[in-house]
């Protein structure tokens, strides 16, 4: 009996009128956990009842504590008929189960009804007494912390990054049970909400167990998704990266941070961690000895990739749900043997992280991806997870083998997704093949690590670009040059990755959002034929998406993509591909060549003229873009390095394959050997379209930038003004006999118009950058295309941006963390001086750039002066307590980023993972589909904020809307929507003090800091 859950129902407010006669409500509350239910008294005739209940106590197992949500139902008492439900509140009590998170949940929660939406609020207090014998604690997974953030959370230090954890649970979807025919929509929705809540809890607990077996204490980059498979079931799956985290609480841990919280904020991120990446992966491979393995007999789930025979020696493990418990025993024995070359031995050396401690990432090979088409109605045992486990295992093997082919032993920025249409399901996985620092795999002392890092950083900020594979034995045709930065190593001419821009990367100019959009019609077909048709289309789509990305990148005058995410969506009669990434110019890579247009038609005067006209337009656009994004790389004397007109070959960093039901594997050679990527032949209309679409992409209006990564390269002076938003658009395609071109145009217009609308709506925030722009495409019906965008707009300080851009370029080469413009204001001596004397400045600097707050550089510097330089900071740290922020009560910020500009995250309160269903049978009355969804999304935000506030938090970071499934039936006046969101609840402290200082002296800060630095050395 390891826990006692205590709940107190305090009061309600703004309840709906349930009794028309009196215009009042006789409300009472049912509190349910597991199978136990308590009730409050009926509070007669009030819309603002004061129950002030006793403490309801539930004595429960920790397993239940983790799985079950607390369910609070508000009802209207009715003497003569059945009591009417007003609405419910589900509270995930998981945050109360680990010591460092919240200790109490207390606050006003919106009372939610799946038919009526929010109906008033209820004030609830929840506490958990864990009977804390630590042994027990250990054996359940109660203590494991979960973070959605895909980097090491700000107030923690990674002791060990263990690696990949995954889990998957399956259940029957209540919506497809026989009982659904006789129960009300409300009952059905609530059954579904409850089930998903339960499954999420179970999933998290199971993943927690795996983490404990790996000797970790946390999961970072936790991504949970659900697949609505329909008849075959409801799948909830999750992946994450197991870590051992240390809370940075002692002054030592906080060392680089000074007593000013804002400072700490900037510095806390992982980079400051002295030995953050002791990647002692040995203990982290518990998977080997796992006995569980799935049966690979099903025809459509066979091993698909031929190249990974070596890998498949490793038994598939860790996949079966519930299998985890078996591994405890032999684990320790293995642990000793595996301390070396641990990464190689790991079954899946995958990391869901997208940002890393400095030095962790040695080389980046490129994007690896794998897709597979499956038929859901062929699952033999739909209620069991084996089949899906096998599917994913297969895909992961492919990913692993692709990474190997790129000479990499690990995959970072790894993610998985599905797209389902009827019985067809496309499983996708992608990541970035990478070589991780082997030295980080051993435990090093702080100093050792540090030294090593400094040394590592000597080829400043270009190391990760150097090719990891063998030059003579390249996995694909590529054009290599010597690194433009260090001139020692070879680099490719373009680099595609799924990760965030490394903080030490040297970038010239600013970045921008680059999207490739594509539609392909497909015949309606059934089952096998359908799957085959899709499988056949996929390689072409990938190829075209890739070509578009490449062309657009060239058009921007850039040479690398970060945060690449390619989404392929399947519908009844079409496939959609949407790729988003942030383009940048990496100083290490050669200057990209232009785009040349060629026509095959033999000399025809007007035609030639047309071509040259197009060519001119393209050249103009490139020139304009270079100016717009401030890409003016230093002239490289040795022109030999990269010929301005590129070698006529397409180099692909994208290695991908499809495995489909027919069990074929397609290794797609994107280069096709012959075609020049940058020579566009415009003989057929398709190509003309391509050229046109290239030129029709309008740049954002002046004052706007956009990217889909955490931060925008080249902008660091964020202010604290942020606005997170979700925008949804659905278009109906007019005719059924559409052509591919018309479809493409529609889709392209949809995305472009959506972006234009965003720019217009957010114009008051100029100068501003849309960060973490996340597009999701779905095809809810035959002729409907739905695009959902979530992003955050952050205002930055224009003046400072202008000031800093200039020195940036010249100095960047000399510095480890050059892309940080703020730092460039520091005299260089300071940096070089302080480096040896103080171990942490580089890290700190990274952080500044990483968490990038704004306007504050000045402030920060000013403060630093007071506190006497970085070295002094540590000593001074305790002198004054961080001034507690003037948090405006009740405001909860939400952001998809892992940080809050202008503030410091002081505490992580736990993961927020919420699932809601909303349904209406009076669509017109609620303002049509737009009114319905608008209200619902606003309600979802409200419920997320309320839960965060009740945990004592004031922000959600790494917020993501993972699903927004919208279905309508206007004829019946009905609509239904499912939304799944998650994020990390945090407490942040704003540095108002610092802002004041910065406002006062925006520029005159270099001087003082400089002296400060000298004092230190």
């Amino acid at each position: 009996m390891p826990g006692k859950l205590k709940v107190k129902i305090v009061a309600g407010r703004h309840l709906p009128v349930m009794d028309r006669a009196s215009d009042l409500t006789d409300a009472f509350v049912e509190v349910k956990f597991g199978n136990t239910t308590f009730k409050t008294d009926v509070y007669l005739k009030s819309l603002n009842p004061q129950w002030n209940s006793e403490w309801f106590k539930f004595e429960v197992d920790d397993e239940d504590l983790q799985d079950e949500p607390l369910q609070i139902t508000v009802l209207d008492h009715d003497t003569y008929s059945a009591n009417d439900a007003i609405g419910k509140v589900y509270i995930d009590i998981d945050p109360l189960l680990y010591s460092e998170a919240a200790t109490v949940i207390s606050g006003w929660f919106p009372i939610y009804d799946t038919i009526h939406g929010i109906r008033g609020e209820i004030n609830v207090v929840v506490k958990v007494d864990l009977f804390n014998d630590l042994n027990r604690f250990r054996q359940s997974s109660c203590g494991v912390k979960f973070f959605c953030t895909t980097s090491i959370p700000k107030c923690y230090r990674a002791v060990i990054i263990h690696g990949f954890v995954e889990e998957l649970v399956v259940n029957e979807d209540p919506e497809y049970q026989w009982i659904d025919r006789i129960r009300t929509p409300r009952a059905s929705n609530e059954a579904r909400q409850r089930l998903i809540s339960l499954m999420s809890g179970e999933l998290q607990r199971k993943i927690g167990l795996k983490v404990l077996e790996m000797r970790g204490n946390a999961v970072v980059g936790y991504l949970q998704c659900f697949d609505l498979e329909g008849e075959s079931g409801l799948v909830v799956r999750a992946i994450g990266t197991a870590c051992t985290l240390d809370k940075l609480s002692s002054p030592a841990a906080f060392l680089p941070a000074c007593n000013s919280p804002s400072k700490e904020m900037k510095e806390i991120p992982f980079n400051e961690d002295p030995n953050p990446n002791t990647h002692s992966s040995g203990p982290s491979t518990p998977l080997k000895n796992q006995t569980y393995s799935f049966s690979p007999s099903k025809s459509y789930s066979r091993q698909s990739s031929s190249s990974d025979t070596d890998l498949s020696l490793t038994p598939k493990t860790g996949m079966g749900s519930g299998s985890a418990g078996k591994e405890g025993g032999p684990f320790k024995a293995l642990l000793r043997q595996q301390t070396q070359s641990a990464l190689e031995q790991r079954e899946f050396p995958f990391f869901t992280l997208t940002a890393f401690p400095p030095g962790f990432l040695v080389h980046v090979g490129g994007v690896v991806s794998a897709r597979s088409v499956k038929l859901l109605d062929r699952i033999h045992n739909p209620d069991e997870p084996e089949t899906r486990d096998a599917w994913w295992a297969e895909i992961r093997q492919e990913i692993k083998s692709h990474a190997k082919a790129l000479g990499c032993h690990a995959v970072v920025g790894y993610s998985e997704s599905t797209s389902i249409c009827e019985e067809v399901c496309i499983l996708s996985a992608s990541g970035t093949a990478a070589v991780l620092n082997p030295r980080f795999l051993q435990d090093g002392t702080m100093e050792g690590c540090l030294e090593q890092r400094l040394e590592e950083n000597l080829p400043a900020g270009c190391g990760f670009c150097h090719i990891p594979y063998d030059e003579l034995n390249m996995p694909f045709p590529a054009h290599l040059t010597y690194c433009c930065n260090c001139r020692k190593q070879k680099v490719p001419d373009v680099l595609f990755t799924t990760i965030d821009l490394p903080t030490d990367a040297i970038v010239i100019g600013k970045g921008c959002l680059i999207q490739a959009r594509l539609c392909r019609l497909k015949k309606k077909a059934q089952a096998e034929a359908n799957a085959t048709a899709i499988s056949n289309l996929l390689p072409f789509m990938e190829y075209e998406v890739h070509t578009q990305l490449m062309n657009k990148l060239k058009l921007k005058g850039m040479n690398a993509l970060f945060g690449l995410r390619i989404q392929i969506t399947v519908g009844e009669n079409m496939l959609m591909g949407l790729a988003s990434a942030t383009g940048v110019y990496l100083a290490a890579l050669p200057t990209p060549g232009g785009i040349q247009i060629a026509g095959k038609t033999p000399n025809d005067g007007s035609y030639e003229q047309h071509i040259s006209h197009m060519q001119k337009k393209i050249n103009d656009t490139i020139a304009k873009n270079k100016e717009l994004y401030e890409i003016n790389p230093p002239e490289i004397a040795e022109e030999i390095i990269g010929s301005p007109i590129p070698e006529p070959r397409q180099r692909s960093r994208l290695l991908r394959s499809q495995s489909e039901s027919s069990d074929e594997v397609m290794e797609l050679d994107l280069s096709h050997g012959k075609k020049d990527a940058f020579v566009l032949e415009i003989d057929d209309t398709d190509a003309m379209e391509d050229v046109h679409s290239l030129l029709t992409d309008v740049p954002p209006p002046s004052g706007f930038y956009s990217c889909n990564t955490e931060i925008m390269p080249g902008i660091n002076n964020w202010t604290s003004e942020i606005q997170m938003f979700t925008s949804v658009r659905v278009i109906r395609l007019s005719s059924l006999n559409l052509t591919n071109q018309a479809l493409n145009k529609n889709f392209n217009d949809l995305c472009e118009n959506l972006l234009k609308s965003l720019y217009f709506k957010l114009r008051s925030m100029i100068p501003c950058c849309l960060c973490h722009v996340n597009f999701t495409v779905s095809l809810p019906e035959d002729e409907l295309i739905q695009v959902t965008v979530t992003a955050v707009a952050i205002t930055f300080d224009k003046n400072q941006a202008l000031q800093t851009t200039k020195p940036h370029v010249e100095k960047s080469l000399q510095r480890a963390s050059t892309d940080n413009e703020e730092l460039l204001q520091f005299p260089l001596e300071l940096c070089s001086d302080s480096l040896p004397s103080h171990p942490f400045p580089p890290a700190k600097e990274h952080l500044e750039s990483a968490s990038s707050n704004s306007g504050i550089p000045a402030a920060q510097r000013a403060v630093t002066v007071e506190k006497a330089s970085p070295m002094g900071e540590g000593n001074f740290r305790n002198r004054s307590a961080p001034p507690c922020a003037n948090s405006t009560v009740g405001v909860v910020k939400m952001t998809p980023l892992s940080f809050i500009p202008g503030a410091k995250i002081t505490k992580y309160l736990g993961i927020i993972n919420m699932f809601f269903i909303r349904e209406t049978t009076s669509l017109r009355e609620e303002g049509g589909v737009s009114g319905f969804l608008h209200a619902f999304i606003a309600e979802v935000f409200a419920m997320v904020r309320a839960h965060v506030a009740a945990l004592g938090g004031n922000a959600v970071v790494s917020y993501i809307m993972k699903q927004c499934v919208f279905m309508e039936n206007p004829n019946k006046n009905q609509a239904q929507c499912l939304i799944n969101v998650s994020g990390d609840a945090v407490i942040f402290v704003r540095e108002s003090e610092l802002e004041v200082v910065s406002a006062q002296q925006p520029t005159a800060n270099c001087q003082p800091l400089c002296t400060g630095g000298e004092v230190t050395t």
Partner: protein
Amino acid sequence: MTSELDIFVGNTTLIDEDVYRLWLDGYSVSDAVALRVRSGILEQTGATAAVLQSDTMDHYRTFHMLERLLHAPPKLLHQLIFQIPPSRQALLIERYYAFDEAFVREVLGKKLSKGTKKDLDDISTKTGITLKSCRRQFDNFKRVFKVVEEMRGSLVDNIQQHFLLSDRLARDYAAIVFFANNRFETGKKKLQYLSFGDFAFCAELMIQNWTLGAIGEAPTDPDSQVDDMDVDLDKEFLQDLKELKVLVADKDLLDLHKSLVCTALRGKLSVFSEMEANFKNLSRGLVNVAAKLTHNKDVRDLFVDLVEKFVEPCRSDHWPLNDVRLFLNQYSASVHSLDGFRHPTLWDRYMGTLRGCLLRLYHD
């Protein structure tokens, strides 16, 4: 390709002040888009009409959802659905409850009933304010009226507390509620020259001095709100006003009053002779107004009477405002020197307020 659904939801609710104004003014989405286009916003921002349309729709939807909350502003503060910074909340409320001068002049003093609501069509045509906007303003008046009508305590405070309006706007609403409750006639042709501000000024004076609340506001016990009703005139006081009749009924008293005033003002007024000639008429007018206030009907005609009996005669003789002031001051003060008059306090309570009102009403 048609847009089926198009929404934008921010964690902080975006409020566009210009669009809010258009919405409050009752324009349809298409009219609002047209007006925005005309404002030149497309050129400034490089946006397209489609973008503007989508943006306007979004804002209208948001306002529509907010409207329910704006009906009870404290709800807007406590609700959780829309995260709006306090300054914006205040702006939303203030603008929502703001009204058009032209509109308020039409309904001021009218019963806020269904009947009046039916006349909104005509008011809309007459004033050029959209019917939608007229309805909103009318409903605002009515809502505020309903909430505070039975309440004890200061009218302005009550309004401020329940509707979170700025001090100025709360005062205006107090005037509207006060006028609606007492049904003062303000629509007569001879009253057309008066602005809402003139009436609001008078209302404030009357609330301060002539209501039940006026008694409760004794300086010694400002918190006592036991009988503090600001909405209704103090019936007892109105009854007592009959006693003032003696001032014009008693011929000696009237002559004495006149001579006192004339002596004091001789040589000081540019219209002395006119004043001297008219004194008895004016005095009769003012005192009779007081004596009649026991009847509801006459209370309603208070402003008509004041204008007829005092403002118009003076205006026809071209009294300068300063002379009116001197006269009224002397006229009020001299009463204290009348030996036979036994209600100086009553007189001051009546005349103090009336003097203020008359001076405000005396203009072209």
